[in-house]
């Protein structure tokens, strides 16, 4: 039985009272609206014979959306349909709601219920199994459910909430800060020696810091300068001691700095590598939802934030706590009354900090978003500077930038103003404590209160001051820890993301791949319910060429993405040499498939490096051969630096045709068994295309080739052509066969294109 959402027991009781045998229910799902798009609880249930739609509201176990729980179930509608009479169920997606519609065998449509998008995936699952039920693939209430359709797999086991992203089984609500830190601490564990030395040096540094005020104040004034002191007149000794402690402190500080410098580089490097590795292993779908630029900033900034928090923040935090505690103990032992008086301002300090914290966060957020807006606008405009110039919009862009920039400046000003009046006032509050210590302490020295001496007073004041700097640090720490938590969350978000496409543990690596490709009833959608590929089947024998034709958006490139396993198909199977691509090892798949597409991308490096990218161990001769075959050699040799010319972002800009020839050279060097040409010549003028055509002929020799092209003339020589329309194979055959179909899609497209070319003065 498939239950996508919890169905309360009183619904079952109600069904029983209507004469439904609830043991026979095979599928059940929940929608949060009725057929008038009004919020209510609607249950859609199916037995082998009946489809039941029940709407109402209330009920004790209300599994619906948040709202008042009412003990009475108020039924609004109860409808039953014969499964026999239903041709199919359809989920029609509206913009922010969806509706479940039944197409009856009579041709009539019935509106079953509406729902918000939240219920959409449950209902899609319902429809999938409803179809299986109709086809007789599942029977009774005991049938197998695909793990990915299992509703419990998509919910947090702790709080029951649906994961915001099904592919990332992370429940943000149940993610704990403590665990996050603990997890990171284990990461740091491998640096335990360094961390230990750092902590030790910090402790010693603090100890010398605490000792210093005693030596230079109480000891110096009361014991050395005072006639009755134990070390009266030993000025040299005290100077030596003071210098000694200072030197020792300096030594510990140097040790700490050295260790910290060493470990910081290592940890940051390690962190960046961890994130980069995680990103590299992720599937395409992860990148589709994100800005790549954002990811880069994330890797860089977050590693630094995390490092400084853990290697700077936490040790100092601990040390400061120790310092505050030790100093407080000394102060209270020395003079409890004066200690209490001079520390009285500390709570006021924290009170102000906490009050202003919220406001400051807001100012920081605004400042951040302001500068982000300036940066993004800047990179946007500079990236598109040619378009700006072409439409002579320079002045408009300057005005736009001025506006954004002014806003950012205002936010920054507000933040600085705030900092400039809050922090000095905070300083004043603390300074007040200092004044109290001096005033009251001075009076105590004069009146001889509890033997309080001048030296002790100076020591006391010095210690009081030692409390203040940690206070500032603690105030900063609140913000700091929040930033670090965010960074850690983002880091682990990437780290924990499971790639959707994984290699099977027992994946097959055949000794040789011949290049037979077969698609069998393949279905695929990027977004649920919007099938891009709908039951596509075809096969290409090794060494043959298949051309794929179709309108823009018909799903041609998707077929290629599926073969390359950039995505996995939802239904059906794809075979290479009779082996399902899902069973093939990544190595054997990727080593034997190459793609040349309209978009060429070259990394920063020499032409040689870029051609060799496909086969890093290729010899120079092989590279030149490949370049010659691709028709690239001649233009490369015209460049002063020839194969060592640097290309890629910020270097020599090649023309479209040149880039394409390089990318073909890259593919030739790879020498794959299966070659995909995805609109490889689309961006070229006819003359360049002709030149590249020769390169392509060289490239496709003896290889299984899948060729996607807009310009049908380039596909004329293919062994077979398939025409894709709305994700389906509409026509199949050779160029001649397809052309012969009067009124066929191919025939129409071909006629249109040759006419257009004739108009442009080109005859083929």
């Amino acid at each position: 039985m498939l239950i996508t959402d919890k169905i309360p027991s009183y619904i079952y009781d109600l069904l029983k009272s209507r004469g439904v045998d609830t043991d026979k229910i095979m599928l059940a799902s929940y929608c949060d609206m009725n057929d008038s798009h009004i919020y209510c609880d609607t249950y859609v249930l199916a037995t082998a014979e009946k489809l039941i739609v029940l709407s109402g509201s209330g009920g004790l176990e209300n599994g619906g959306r948040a709202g008042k729980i009412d003990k009475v179930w108020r039924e609004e509608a109860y409808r039953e349909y014969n499964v026999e009479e239903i041709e199919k169920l359809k989920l029609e997606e509206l913009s922010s709601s969806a509706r479940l519609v039944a197409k009856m065998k009579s041709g009539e449509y019935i509106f079953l219920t509406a729902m918000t998008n939240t219920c959409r995936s449950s209902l899609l699952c319902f429809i999938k199994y409803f179809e299986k039920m109709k086809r007789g693939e599942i029977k009774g209430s005991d049938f197998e459910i695909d793990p990915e359709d299992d509703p419990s797999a998509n919910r947090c086991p702790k709080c029951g909430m649906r994961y915001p992203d099904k592919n990332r089984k992370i429940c943000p609500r149940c993610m704990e800060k403590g665990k996050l830190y603990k997890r990171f601490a284990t990461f740091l564990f491998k640096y335990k020696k360094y961390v230990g030395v750092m902590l030790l040096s910090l402790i010693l540094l603090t100890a010398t810091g605490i000792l210093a005020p005693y030596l230079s104040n109480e000891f110096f004034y009361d014991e050395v300068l005072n006639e009755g002191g134990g070390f009266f007149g030993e000025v040299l000794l005290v100077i030596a001691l003071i210098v000694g402690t200072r030197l020792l402190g300096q030594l510990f500080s140097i040790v700490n700095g050295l260790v910290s410098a060493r470990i910081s580089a290592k940890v940051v490097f390690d962190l960046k590598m961890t994130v980069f590795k995680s990103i590299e292993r992720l599937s395409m779908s992860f990148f589709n939802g994100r800005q790549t630029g954002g990811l880069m900033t994330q890797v860089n900034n977050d590693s630094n934030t995390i490092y400084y928090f853990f290697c700077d923040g936490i040790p100092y935090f601990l040390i400061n706590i120790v310092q505050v505690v030790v100093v407080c103990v000394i102060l209270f032992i020395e003079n409890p009354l004066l200690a209490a008086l001079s520390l009285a301002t500390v709570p006021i300090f924290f009170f102000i900090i906490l009050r202003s914290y919220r406001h400051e966060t807001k100012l920081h957020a605004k400042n951040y978003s302001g500068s982000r807006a300036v940066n993004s606008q800047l990179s946007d405009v500079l990236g598109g500077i040619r378009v700006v110039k072409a439409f002579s919009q320079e002045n408009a862009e300057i005005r736009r930038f001025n506006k954004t920039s002014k806003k950012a400046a205002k936010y920054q000003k507000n933040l600085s103003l705030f900092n400039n009046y809050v922090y000095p006032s905070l300083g004043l509050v603390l300074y007040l404590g200092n004044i109290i210590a001096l005033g009251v302490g001075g009076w105590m020295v004069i009146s001889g209160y509890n033997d309080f001496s001048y030296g002790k007073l100076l020591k006391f004041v010095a210690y009081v001051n030692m409390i203040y700097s940690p206070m500032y640090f603690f105030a900063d720490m609140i913000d700091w820890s929040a930033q670090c938590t965010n960074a850690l969350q983002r880091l682990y978000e990437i780290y924990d993301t499971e790639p959707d496409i994984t290699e099977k543990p027992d994946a097959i690596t055949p000794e040789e791949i011949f290049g037979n490709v077969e698609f069998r009833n393949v279905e695929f959608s990027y977004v649920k319910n919007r099938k891009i590929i709908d039951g596509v089947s075809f096969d290409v024998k090794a060494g043959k060429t298949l051309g794929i034709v179709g309108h823009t958006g018909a799903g041609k490139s998707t077929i290629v993405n599926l073969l390359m396993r950039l995505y996995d198909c939802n239904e059906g199977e794809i075979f290479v040499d009779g082996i399902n691509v899902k069973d093939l090892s990544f190595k054997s798949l990727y080593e034997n498939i190459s793609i040349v597409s309209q978009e060429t991308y070259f990394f920063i490096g020499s032409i040689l490096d870029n051609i060799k990218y496909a086969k890093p161990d290729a010899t120079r001769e092989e590279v030149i051969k490949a370049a010659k075959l691709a028709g690239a050699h001649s233009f490369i040799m015209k460049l002063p630096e020839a194969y060592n010319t640097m290309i890629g972002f910020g270097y020599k800009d090649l023309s479209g045709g040149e880039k394409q020839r390089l990318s073909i050279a890259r593919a030739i060097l790879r020498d794959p068994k299966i070659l995909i040409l995805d609109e490889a010549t689309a961006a070229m003028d006819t003359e360049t295309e002709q030149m590249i055509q020769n390169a392509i002929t060289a490239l496709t020799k003896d290889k299984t080739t899948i060729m996607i092209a807009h310009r049908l003339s380039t596909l004329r020589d293919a062994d077979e052509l398939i025409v894709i329309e709305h994700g389906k194979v509409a026509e199949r055959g050779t160029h001649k066969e397809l052309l012969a179909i009067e009124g066929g899609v191919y025939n129409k497209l071909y006629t249109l294109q040759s006419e257009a070319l004739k108009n442009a003065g080109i005859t083929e």
Partner: protein
Amino acid sequence: MEQKNEIMLDRAARIIRLDKSSAVFKSENRFLTLTLTEDGEEKKYNRVFLHRAFPHELLWEYISVLDEDNKEIGLIYNIEDFDTETASVLKTELERKYYSPVISTIESVKERYGFSYWKINTADGKKITFTMQDTYRNIVHTGGDSLLLLDVDGNRFTIESVTALDRKSYRKIEIYL
């Protein structure tokens, strides 16, 4: 040839304007139907779908009418081009398609792990919780001081006037603006 091209261009740029003189919309069995009269010929579409051309700016203008295969039949310039009864049928259909509860107060917004969790009350007295990802990008300014919030499932929520929100609610959304 040139003439032929012009005709093709002309056809490509032609907008079929639907108004009360040519189109009759009805709600039949909760489905929207259209009877279109063109050059004296009547054609009935049993199921048509509406789609706003400028969903963030113009709610009742420039509405594309599509058939079951998602092909455009024509464009409604303004639903006021129809009589009040038809306009109300169209309005209901659009409101259903772009269903977006109006937020009256925001009870809480919690940011965690790249997602924000919202507890809100709607103008018609419902309490709703929803989750947003990448909150900054999914709060859209829709002219004036009205906002559109898009949650992780693709549901929409409207704030008609952000400045008219009560102080507490405003403070919760303020940092995302």
